[in-house]
């Protein structure tokens, strides 16, 4: 992310190259599981922004960003 880059450039690092990786193709068929997505969206829409239990959300007690 830019914050890391900013720190490195400040420490006299020089940006040299970049390589891109495809994370996902839109053209690949997904697996339409209507009930699953419906439940997912419903829970997102009905959530309250209080008492966030981050460890519960992230499942195993660890998370990246």
């Amino acid at each position, binding site marked *: 992310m830019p914050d890391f880059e900013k720190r490195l450039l400040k420490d006299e690092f020089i940006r040299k190259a970049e390589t891109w990786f495809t994370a996902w193709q*839109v053209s690949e068929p*997904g697996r339409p599981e209507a009930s699953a997505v419906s439940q997912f969206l419903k829970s997102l829409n009905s959530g309250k922004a209080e008492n966030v239990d981050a460890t519960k959300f992230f499942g195993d007690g660890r998370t990246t*960003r």
Partner: protein
Amino acid sequence: MVLPILSFAKNGPEVSDFIRFKERTSTSKSEHLETAIVRYENPGTQTTIDLVAVIHIGDRLYFQKLNAALKSYQTVFYEAVGNDFPKSKKPAEPKKQNIPFSDRQQAVAYLGLQQQRNWIDYEAKNFVHADLSWKELYDLMAIRNQSLTTTFQKLHRLSNQGKSPGSGMASAATGRLTGGDPLELKRNMARSMSEDEKLAAQLESHGGTVIVTDRNNAVMEKLNAAINAPESEGTPKKFAIFFTEPLTCPISKNVS
């Protein structure tokens, strides 16, 4: 709003993108979301550092390629709030799903994608945990008078102010859903994620946050210690910082 990072870009070298969505063109029918590895070198200290971006969900092949790329570094400093992943002698293989079927898992299944944490080999010998523990995170948040809730709320507000097309998964639930078409949802999420990098810069514009600034401090402390280690003085060094993009990716159901 004056953004430090964007100001820096204006007055100094252009800031790199680490995630982008390649739209369909007249010559290519392929549409895909991409993340970057960007390389930086410091000839003075003979140090090469790669910033390796990853997103939480992607194709299996994507994570397999990243695993292969990450083997080439002396040390991979990885972000993950919590404790270190235990080292294992076994090669990387998909982890068993031993947790309840979460919202994210449902979304991942629907989109036909895989989860990062099931495929990235965090137990690799060259992986070093470089992040806050949950206690450190919450302690620092108390000092800054922040919380995960307020941070995500702020992200959501920024997203809704039109400064970014959306906020990853949250955007899917707030008006971008397109009739249950997984490809359209996938496309919209990819577009949103590619724009959400800007949100992090906006989020940091008032003195920083624990979830970005303080966590990045933790990474840089470990990195600088490795660069300046007496035993490696005078020898070439090659490190990676492995971090997740975009910031908004893990926004939970609890964000309204």
